[in-house]
């Protein structure tokens, strides 16, 4: 990698840290119900929402109550979203006249957006109306992010409270998270994005006259729409000349902002943040990158502040960074070295020149550095937006995003869900480490016993099972829809279910959807989200009831370098042991074949 690329990476992490620290302590105030400037200005709105909905804000919930509210809310949200997609043709704000979304795709998409996955088996500008995008998809970008943070807060309260069963009020956490964290951040970000060139309009698709008309060959179809074959047995083609360029527009900026901040990743356009309207300049790229990790990183500091030991937050952040940084390097090194099969064609300078390296599927304005930082960061976090096409990465470069997802979305991960996923690994690491020092393991004074192990095991078990089983079903039924032959086709399928089961949403986008994939993926996203969130809440409930063991020299410290190494190794080993065979049959063998053709 070049010096400039290193500088971009370093600048990224430094600025991220500078922003995350204050945001983290601010968020702690929001969830601890302490007063702060925004609550003074918008307290009336918060109270109004409680009154309209009938929320009893003072009434706390035990874990079952919290889980019930969380689940019901998500189910209701999903159903309404499904209905909106199916009915979009008869709803307002549909200037392009999009028709109803087919049932299986609508099912997949509804679950995708309530689970913070934002997996897209569709192209935004060709499928969804402005209304569906804005009042459906974007709303859930906010709400599922707030729901993830609320679940995390219940867990943190379980850790810090003692001998109680109450974990807070789900509706209050949802409202405050949305009103005081997501909305203000999104609104400010929207304004910057518009200034940089993201459209924010309700006007219909614009049409421009091409400077140089272009042409293409189109297969001739008969009245039934079937292709017509010529005398030579080949499909008959007509030459079509195009003189106009239709340009899709819409309320892009407001959706883009929350898509990045809420680790949602569902693009307004098909190509997501590679689209110049979603991500027009290197500056917006840098900001959007920051937005991906901002809240997940800040939540580590929120955690530190709430458990009253900032070192605990730093330790977790350090482990997350250690999981991400080497992978980012591997990705950068592979992509900059380029594709040896192309390098043979006397293409490129084979050095570190600009515009060199593996540029297939990458935008010029982001270059290799902007693309590889994004690819690794968007998959480390469960954002899943892309600014380059992972499918066209070199095999090992493409392994990196796949691998980051396989780690279970715990290196930063989704807003809320990343940290609670990581805490499940912390509990696993604490358990093994605790035994190694000869004591019943404890974390932050709470004893880790059978019940916690059960819940943590479920959390660690579910996502890999979903990935492997869904991929197995897909390949066993023939593995249809792949865009590339051989091992790369296998990678596309593996990536698809990896991404959905772990609620990431990015893709080896060559894979085209079908009813089986829609339904199976929908189920994987659902279980991948809520079969983790419910054990988290159950664990929170159990932890809250425990006493706090006072710290002593015999207590395993969970803020040391050693523990961070132990935690990092636990995450890596679990991921590696689960996915090594699958990776060997996908990207690894493709890489070996590529370098030894």
């Amino acid at each position, binding site marked *: 990698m070049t010096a400039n690329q290193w500088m971009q990476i370093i600048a990224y992490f430094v600025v991220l840290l500078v922003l995350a620290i204050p945001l983290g302590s601010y968020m702690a105030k929001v969830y601890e119900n302490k007063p702060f400037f925004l609550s003074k200005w918008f307290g009336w709105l918060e109270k109004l929402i409680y009154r309209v909905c009938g929320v009893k804000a003072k009434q706390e919930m035990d874990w079952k109550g919290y889980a019930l509210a969380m689940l019901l809310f998500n189910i209701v949200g999903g159903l309404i979203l499904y209905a909106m997609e199916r009915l979009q043709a008869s709803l307002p704000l549909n200037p392009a006249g999009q028709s109803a979304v087919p049932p299986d795709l609508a099912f997949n998409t509804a679950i995708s957006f309530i689970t913070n996955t934002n997996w897209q088996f569709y192209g935004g500008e060709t499928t969804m109306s402005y209304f569906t995008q804005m009042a459906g998809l974007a709303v859930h970008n906010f709400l599922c992010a707030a729901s993830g943070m609320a679940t995390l807060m219940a867990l943190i309260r379980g850790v810090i409270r003692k001998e109680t069963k109450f974990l807070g009020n789900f509706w209050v956490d949802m409202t405050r998270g949305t009103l005081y964290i997501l909305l203000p951040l999104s609104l400010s970000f929207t304004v910057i994005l518009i200034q940089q060139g993201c459209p924010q309009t309700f006007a219909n698709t614009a049409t421009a006259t091409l400077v140089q008309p272009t042409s293409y060959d189109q297969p001739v179809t008969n009245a039934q729409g079937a292709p017509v074959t010529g005398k030579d047995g080949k499909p008959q083609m007509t030459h079509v000349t195009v003189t106009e360029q239709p340009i899709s527009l819409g309320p892009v900026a407001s959706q883009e902002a929350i898509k990045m901040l809420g680790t949602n990743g569902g693009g307004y356009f098909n190509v997501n943040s590679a689209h110049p309207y979603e991500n027009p300049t290197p500056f917006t790229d840098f900001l959007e990158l920051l937005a991906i990790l901002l809240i997940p990183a800040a939540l580590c500091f929120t955690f530190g502040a709430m458990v009253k030991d900032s070192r605990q937050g730093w330790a977790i952040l350090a482990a997350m960074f250690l999981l991400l940084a080497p992978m980012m390097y591997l990705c950068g090194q592979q992509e900059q070295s380029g594709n040896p099969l192309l390098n043979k064609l006397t293409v490129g300078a084979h050095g570190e020149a600009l515009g060199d390296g593996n540029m297939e599927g990458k935008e010029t304005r982001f270059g290799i550095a902007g693309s590889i930082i994004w690819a690794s960061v968007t998959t480390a976090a469960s954002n899943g937006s892309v600014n380059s096409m992972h499918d066209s990465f070199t095999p090992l470069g493409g392994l990196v995003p796949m691998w980051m997802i396989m780690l279970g979305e715990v290196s930063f991960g989704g807003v809320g869900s990343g940290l609670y996923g990581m805490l499940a690994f912390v509990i696993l690491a604490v*358990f093994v480490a605790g035994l*190694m*020092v000869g004591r019943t393991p404890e974390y932050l004074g709470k004893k880790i016993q*059978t019940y916690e192990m059960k819940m943590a*095991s479920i959390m660690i078990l579910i996502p*890999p099972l979903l990935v492997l089983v869904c991929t197995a079903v897909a390949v066993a039924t023939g593995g249809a829809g792949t865009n590339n032959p051989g091992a790369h086709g296998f990678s596309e399928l593996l990536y698809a279910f990896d991404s959905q089961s772990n609620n990431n949403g990015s893709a080896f986008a060559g894979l085209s959807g079908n009813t089986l994939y829609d339904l199976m993926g929908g189920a994987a996203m659902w279980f991948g989200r809520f079969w983790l969130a419910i054990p988290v809440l159950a664990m929170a409930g159990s932890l809250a009831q425990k006493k706090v063991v006072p710290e002593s020299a015999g*207590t395993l410290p969970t803020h040391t370098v050693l*523990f961070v190494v132990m935690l990092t190794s636990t995450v890596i*080993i679990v991921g590696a042991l689960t996915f090594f065979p699958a990776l060997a049959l996908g990207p690894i063998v493709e890489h*070996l074949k590529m370098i030894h053709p």
Partner: protein
Amino acid sequence: MTEHVKARKLFEGEITRKAILESFKKLGPLHMIKNPVMFTVYVGSILTTGLWLQALTGKGEAASGFIFAVSLWLWFTVIFANFAEAMAEGRGKAQADTLRKSRQEVKAKKLAKAEKDAKQTEILSGDLRKGDLILVEAGDFIAADGEAVVGIAMVDESAITGESAPVVRESGGDRSAVTGGTRVISDWLIVRVSSNPGESFLDRMISMVEGAKRQKTPNEIALNILLAALTIVFLIVCATLLPFSIYSVVASGAGKAVTVTVLAALFVCLAPTTIGGLLSAIGIAGMDRMIQANVIAMSGRAVEAAGDVDMLLLDKTGTITLGNRQATEFIPASDVDVKELAEAAQLSSLADETPEGRSIVVLAKEKYGLRGQEIHDLKATFVPFTAQTRMSGVDIGKRSIRKGAAESIEAYVKDQGGKYPEDVRRGVDSISRLGGTPLVVAQGKEVLGVIHLKDIVKGGIQERFAELRRMGIKTVMITGDNPLTAAAIAAEAGVDDFLAQATPEAKLKLIREAQAGGRLVAMAGDGTNDAPALAQADVAVAMNTGTQAAKEAGNMVDLDSNPTKLIEVVKIGKQLLMTRGSLTTFSIANDIAKYFAIIPAAFAVTYPELNALNIMRLATPQSAILSAVIFNAVIIVFLVPLALKGVKYRPASASHLLQRNFLVYGVGGLVVPFVGIKIIDLILVGLGLV
């Protein structure tokens, strides 16, 4: 500490032979299913055996020889794990047998009521029931556990404690408990039987060491959950590999799909068989080490809790200090010669058989060369200590020497018209402040001076407390002394805290408060008045010499009746957990190397390129798979000694221990199999087996 049950050699011939036999007997499915990890291996063995039989008919998925070899080693994996368990149980049984020898059926004299001349009936010890009264006379074995209700006797308890000196057992008070299997050597006792047959101390002890009644402990259950989760993951990894492989064959257009045999081999290698196979052996061995320390734990749970203890309550007397105070100094009154004081003090103590009295005689002899004289030669009359006078002394002719507590002597002197000097009062105060006991000596109406009696802190105890502090364990000294004295001794011994003027209620309160603060408390006790506190403590070691009530309340009994044993108990508990944790880490870290052996081999025909991952350069795909399976089986046997002995424990802080064990078992576990598999591969090739 008396090494009553000798530490056994690791692999005693007899035990090993029996264990080998036992490991085959344990192959029944009902036994296997108790251990989920090993059960999956068991199923894998049966499956591959079936595949081998199929291959023999010529319709196999691979060469029958290869399938046979894999199948054979899978069976070995199961058997080795059974062997580890059988070894641990065998060692326990061997100890139980030693114990059992001391307990043949004996005849007991059952009494109709608690009087020596009540009607007697002869009855076998096995027929005794709780509440029966028996008479035990000199030369009789005590037929069952119980409590002396009448009489006093010398009892030889060497069968239980290994201590050869007989002990006194008498009705009432704290020395009333007797243990079945011990023998009365003088006088007689009437004993009320306190347990039904099969529930006596020895019975419990035997069943514990045999592992027959072993229940899984909380940490063991939690670990089992983790291991089960990992096993499920690997099961799915291997199961899904079949469709992946079939797809890859189609995609690459080469080779054929991976065989079920290879997948079974891969699964067994990945499943945490090392820890899964050794888990129960580790638990049994933990109990075993307790027994070797002469402590009987009533449950595995108690052993495990011992590792968690973070507060120790220790009785001052006998644990922190030598049992008795000793004279360390003579402080004469202003106009008295120190020799005169020493002589008077010695004379007054000649007939005093208490350890304090003897220490005064010794001090006078050592410091001032005063030879003790025989009380008979002096024609002296000894005045014993009474609760009323609170003095003792001697009358020789006209000399009447008295020694006693300051107030008593003051009253005594003033009664005779003498006066109590100020400097003596000061001396008394300063000794009290230092935590000592002042003993004032007077001759007639003249006060001669003060003897400084001091609690002697046991040698080396300070270091032990420092050690405990490093382990994060808080020590609290319990004493009946006043706070001033207690503070001084506490400071000298280096305990973290003390409870002075301790009453049973105060002890109980202290424990409850500590537990409410999240601490786990261990204590030792022997008296009936200790029982509530023992019952409340998380780890409660009752002294074997203690009362039945104390033993019932505790969850461990120390046969040596040595309260310092608490520290030992904590170590054994920690060692048990550490062994589990370390072997789990080792087991999981092992998997990495196994992947590098098996994955390139499994897909060699589909993707020959994957041979780049064969970083061990194993000879052939078959040898690679076999080597991994063999390593996986053999490592269990290699680790049996570690499981039985426990990992090395040094008192250190948690982070220090983690660092060491993570390096040894984590990093070691990563590296060892690479070497091991390569060596096995070389041997297989060398022997021409592949």
